[in-house]
């Protein structure tokens, strides 16, 4: 860049970023501070009622609330199932597409479609497919494959409800990781693979000893982002079960939302938000520590 354009001590650049800064201060920074403040209050939106300062009470409540524990367990379990599920299936699809002589583009788009589908549409589709008693999944299991004796009321119990929610998470996420793996696969030098082939390495051996080590940066990148994404699971649960039955399928974010906007306990909701924000920060730092920054692993 030429020096003449690098103006110092000039007001012009500040004018250009002014709108961004104003939006940032009012709708990002201010809410963060406000949330911290609200978390120490019994906060209500009733015009006549005053907000009462309660100190650390909301935070103490979090650690005694059995539903928080359950929501946390549900969230972690969701991450534990959907993250490897997405990664393994995406890798499989990426390897297959990469091995095609032609038609790569078509399959890439087809497998990517669920990623750009809105969560509202996807969640309604899940409610349709897993309908009780006459959904397509029940039909397939009962009448086609005879795997069950009676139709399953999927959303009637937390265990089966999470089968549907987990499957949705995996289905919707495969395409995203697939694209990342595919571009990493295409970056592997052809000579390396040919050399391995000449040396008589089997396809499995070529994957395990040549491709996989070169894919590590892409894999760790998806692992980090998918884990953070899974901790933020919300819309699918919110739209499919609404946290029910009896709040047994609540995940962390849906529980927080329901506490605030259904039970009007805004102070408690704010405290939960603050704790989750700190938790997410710790998870990200730990992952960068142990899995490493994607670039560094090359």
């Amino acid at each position, binding site marked *: *860049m*030429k020096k*003449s*354009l690098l*103006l*110092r*001590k000039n007001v*012009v*650049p*500040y004018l*250009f970023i002014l709108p*961004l*800064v104003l*939006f*940032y201060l*009012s*709708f*990002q920074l*201010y*809410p963060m501070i*406000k*949330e911290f403040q609200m978390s120490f209050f019994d906060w209500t939106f009733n015009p006549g009622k005053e907000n009462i300062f309660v100190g650390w009470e909301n935070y103490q409540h979090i650690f005694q609330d059995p539903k928080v524990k359950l929501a946390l367990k549900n969230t972690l379990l969701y991450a534990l199932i959907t993250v490897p599920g997405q990664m393994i299936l995406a890798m499989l*699809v990426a390897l*297959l*597409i990469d*091995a*095609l*002589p032609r*038609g790569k583009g078509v*399959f890439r*788009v087809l497998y990517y479609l669920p990623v750009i*589908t*809105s*969560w*509202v*549409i996807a*969640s*309604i*589709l899940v409610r*349709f*497919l897993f309908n009780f008693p*006459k959904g*397509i999944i029940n*039909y397939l299991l009962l009448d086609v494959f005879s795997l069950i004796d009676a139709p399953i009321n999927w959303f009637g119990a937390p265990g089966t409800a999470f089968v549907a929610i987990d499957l949705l998470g995996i*289905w919707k996420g495969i395409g995203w990781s697939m*694209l990342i793996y595919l571009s990493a696969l295409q970056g592997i030098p052809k000579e390396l693979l040919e050399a391995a082939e000449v040396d008589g390495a089997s396809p499995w051996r070529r994957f395990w000893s040549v491709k996989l080590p070169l894919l590590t940066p892409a894999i760790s990148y998806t692992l980090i982002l998918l884990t*953070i994404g899974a901790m933020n699971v*919300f*819309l699918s649960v919110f739209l499919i079960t609404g946290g029910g039955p009896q709040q047994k399928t609540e995940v962390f*974010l849906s529980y*927080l*939302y329901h506490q*605030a906007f259904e039970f009007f306990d*805004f102070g408690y*909701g*704010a405290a939960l*938000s603050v704790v989750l*924000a700190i938790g*997410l*920060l710790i998870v990200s730092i730990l992952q960068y520590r142990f899995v490493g920054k994607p670039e560094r692993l090359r």
Partner: protein
Amino acid sequence: MMKIGHMRITKKQVRHLVIYLLLIAGAYFMLSPFAMMVGSSFTENVYVIEYPPRIFPEDPSLGNYDAVWNANNFKLYFKNSLVVALSSTVLTLFFSSLGAYAFARFQFKGKEVIFWFLLIVMMIPDLLLIIPRFELVNRMGIRNTLYGLVIVYVATGVSGQTFFLRGFFEQIPTELEESMLMDGGNYFTIYRRLILPLSTPVLATSAIFSFMSFWDEYVWALTANTDSAVRTLPVMINSFQGQHGTNWGLVFSAMMIALVPVVIVFILSSNYIIGGKAEGAFK
């Protein structure tokens, strides 16, 4: 296949065939929910799912589309969604391109710190700030207005787009700008006459993704706008089900209608994306 005796089918061809079949089977599994959605949208009165379920309706009709389009307030919600998504997209692109230009072209005090602050909020899920934002729009008196949606959508959208556009603007050569400056133009002229026209492909990509995310947004619209006059389409579609037993045909045709603007924006923008390929937007 009949000439199998004469034609040499290599091991490689067999392997390719197997791969194609596997991928087609996988794609069938991935896409069949969409096929059912399309099929049911053309079938009237799907309260109970047919046994055995069929993808292609026996007696296809546009009845659901007609019923949904003329249902209570559907057109109003459609218009609300369109107004909100379009104005949020335009404002997001305007503010973030202005900012990205400054970050790409100027040296100023606090530049990287400000940029870092803008970016770090992308790590925070919007849901974690929904309570104080609700408090804010409530106090500003814009709860239950379309402004309340637009202002929050723009605020949450600008960070990512600024980051995206900055990288692109930095690659535009500076020589032209210098000659414009010497001809007496100011920096806003450069931004408007030079940077924006040179960046149409990138701006189009930004527009697609911004529009899609605003058009589909659900939680904030549900929470902030409880009056039926300012409701948006996703909220309406989701409330369609459940009340009196779900009429799946109606729900699915509403979803199909909601897809139309997305497809139109996609096609319009893809003309501006390098090579005119819509596929580029997927990358």
